[in-house]
């Protein structure tokens, strides 16, 4: 069964190495868990960025080279000399019990750039096994009074029935055996406050690591509900460590991961020959490929909301598809319009040209109230109903 799913996903992906999930994409799954399109593309490891480009709706993500440089400089500063500065922060500012620490850098040592599926898989499995046994050993040692700090350990967690590898920046094993996830972020904390959106994204990503650690260890109580975010302080490059309680994020994640329709079920409803194999630029078959890819995407129902624009590579494609849907105007708009699916339907119900179905009667009443209030307000102000294009 597992092999069958595997083969199926490989076909969907089309003979290229898979794009892997990471904490960001897992966190993104929770923001729109009902989207089958993303669930299948992510499970199969399709390169969504490339796919979006091929079908003519390139995403506009990307990090400025300046941001990358600054991020690297900061991470290097925090982790240099076996994290000596960081350890001091953790001990003094946060009171984390890390006396003499054994430090290990478990980062990938693969510099070959080999991305062939089998070899990459093998490497990941080996790294994961190594990290896992080091962490277990550290917990045992911690009972005897030792403490450890691991940089870039590799964790694994099933998402939608498929294993996903995750790499937190740092995991500390405190004396007594409790674990602490530590993430280094380069957005500043100014007078104790960080940018809300960035802090929220960092918290949910860190929560993914907490959950993965808990599932890997099978001992949830060992991993702290708090994560530590290490950010530049004020306008400087000096690190400041802040505890962030991610209990709420963990609850959300657990809930969403549990209700992620398992991939097998999704695959059953799809045509057997479905594939997103992308044409190589050189083979001149791009035009044909676009039609095929667009058609293939049509088999995967998307659930577009404006929030997708900031998280998903496919967002522009899906937005184009969703033109005329109330949800494309905002989740709040859709709710205010009585949950009616399309704009045309909502306006029809509002002006009485569309007869409501049985479960639309309430929505229709709301919409008629809105339209009455709107038009009477414009009458009161003596304004024309339609604004002319302003000069």
């Amino acid at each position, binding site marked *: 069964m597992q092999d069958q799913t595997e083969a199926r996903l490989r076909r969907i992906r089309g003979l290229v190495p898979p794009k892997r999930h990471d904490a960001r994409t897992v966190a993104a799954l929770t923001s729109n868990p009902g989207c089958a399109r993303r669930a299948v593309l992510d499970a199969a490891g399709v390169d969504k960025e490339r796919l979006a480009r091929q079908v003519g709706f390139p995403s506009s993500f990307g*990090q400025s080279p300046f941001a990358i440089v600054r991020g690297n400089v900061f991470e290097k500063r925090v982790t240099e000399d076996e994290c000596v500065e960081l350890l001091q922060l953790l001990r003094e500012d946060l009171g984390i019990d890390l006396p003499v620490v054994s430090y290990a850098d478990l980062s990938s040592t693969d510099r070959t750039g080999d991305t062939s599926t089998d070899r990459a898989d093998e490497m990941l499995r080996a790294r994961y096994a190594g990290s896992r046994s080091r962490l277990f050993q550290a917990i045992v040692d911690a009972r005897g009074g030792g403490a450890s700090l691991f940089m870039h350990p590799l964790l694994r967690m099933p998402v939608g029935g498929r294993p996903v590898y995750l790499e937190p920046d740092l995991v500390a094993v405190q004396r007594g055996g409790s674990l602490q996830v530590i993430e280094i972020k380069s957005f500043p904390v100014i007078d104790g406050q960080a940018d809300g959106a960035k802090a929220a994204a960092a918290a949910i990503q860190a929560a993914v690591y907490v959950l993965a650690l808990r599932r890997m260890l099978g001992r949830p109580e060992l991993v702290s509900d708090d994560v530590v975010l290490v950010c530049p302080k004020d306008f400087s490059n000096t690190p400041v460590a802040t505890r962030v309680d991610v209990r709420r994020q963990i609850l959300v994640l657990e809930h969403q991961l549990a209700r992620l329709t398992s991939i097998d079920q999704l695959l059953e409803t799809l045509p057997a020959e479905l594939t997103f194999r992308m044409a190589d630029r050189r083979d001149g078959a791009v035009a044909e490929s676009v039609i095929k890819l667009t058609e293939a995407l049509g088999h995967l129902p998307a659930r577009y909301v404006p929030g997708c624009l900031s998280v998903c590579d496919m967002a522009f494609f899906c937005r184009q598809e969703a033109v005329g849907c109330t949800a494309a105007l905002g989740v709040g708009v859709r709710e205010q319009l009585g949950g009616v699916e399309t704009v045309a339907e909502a306006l029809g119900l509002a002006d009485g040209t569309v007869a409501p179905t049985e479960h639309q009667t309430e929505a229709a009443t709301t919409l008629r109230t809105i339209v009455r209030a709107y038009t009477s307000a414009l009458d009161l102000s003596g304004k024309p109903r339609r604004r002319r294009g302003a000069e």
Partner: protein
Amino acid sequence: MSAIHAYARARACASGSATPVATVRHVHLSERPLVFVPLTLAGEANAPLAAMVGTDPDRPALLVVPQPRNRDLRFGFAAELADILLPYVDSFAVAAGEATDGAERPDGPLSEDAPQVLVPNPGGVEFARLFGRSTRFRRTQGEYAVKPSVPLLGRWLTFFAECAEHPGSSMMLAATDALTLHWATGQSAVEDANLAVLMGWLAPPPGTTGAQAARLAGKNPAKYPPAGPATDPRFDKDKLVPAIAAYDNAVAAPDTSDSADSAALRRSAISQLESVLRELLEPTWKLMWQAIALLRGLPGGASVAGRWESDRARFAGFHEYLAEGGPPQARRDGAVAAARRLNRLEQAQAALEAERAFDDPLVMADHRISGEAFAGTVVAVDRDRRIRNGSGKGRLVTRPLVTVRTEDPVGLADGTKVIATARRRQDCYIHAVDRQGDHVLVTVEARSGMGRNSTPAPGSVPKEGDTLCYSSVLADRVRSLNLPDVSATPWTHGGPPTPYEPNTDDAGEAWE
């Protein structure tokens, strides 16, 4: 998202052009606003990269930081910005004591007019807040000295950014916020945050619909660059990285005997950077003035002048505070100060909501849909009703009853205070709500605004056939909190805070 706004979005989406959600202008627009379009360097903590600023649409000043990671250059930028902003602020004279109309004004100084800073989006306000934060504590002497204008600029920027948080203040406005307060587009709020796309909907070029113009603007970030403060990563990679590198090389070039050469090299690198950044900022600069023109086209709401007067008082007060040598605003408020500020903001929010609804039937429409207000025709009046005050034991008082027939979904409980838009001085209370199938009969009891006689003054009570709109969304919804004195801050809130004293740590704070 209000119901009216949601419906207006749906209509805009169907028709392809923007739909009004206001019939009057709810913000004040100065005759002479200062437009400020700041840009930051990606990845850094609010490091300024460039800004276009000025009061004349045809002659913007372009400020550029050739190497944003250089601390001295950042303070140089701050000083240049101060040279524009401070004279602008000072041009609004403050007269202490009384107002121009000679009326007594016990609340302190007032200015005849006040400055207004307009930024493209909420990110621009945030830039001002953080740039104010990073400059207001700086010292002008000794180690890390900066120009005297720099900390002053920081205080003003902080002041403007704080005003921007104050509901109803127009001292610092984000164009996208001001525009979406008045028009709905056929796209989501996420997309409205992009000024170029939003303006596509609101002011499409002749021959195109709003939807088409917006799509065009969204697809082409090179021609319609983001309005900042963040720049497009592709722009950074393709244009900014090489331009800044060229400057760095020019600076690092060995100072050979021919120093004129290296100076020329540096000048050319800077002018190259300037042209790259001017190209990036100009479209937004133009859009800002277009946005201003668009908003000016709307008639001002009745309560806008009153709110601007509060802004003038706030400006004059702060001007005086600085003139008296007041220290920079603290990094963080103490518990009592924070609670007070929050209470003030909540009160201002409630007052603003009430005023906007009374000014504008389209805003009131939202309250009618939510059941907090209703409009209809008077069908019965008991004009001479008199009852005993108190619980039936006091003296006789005039309490007319007015019954309004409405089709609105009234959701008001008996005893709720309501006021009619056309009769602002008459407090009424819901007496009875009688639901009758497709309409509702609401009876309200008038309690004031009828004169002193035993029978109501002529015209002071509505007549049958009058069309009225009563609202329960009133300014006094949020009460003033009875907060302790700062010196009596309870221990649960950390006890009395130590008063803020500017210190050398703040002045010498790293900015790297």
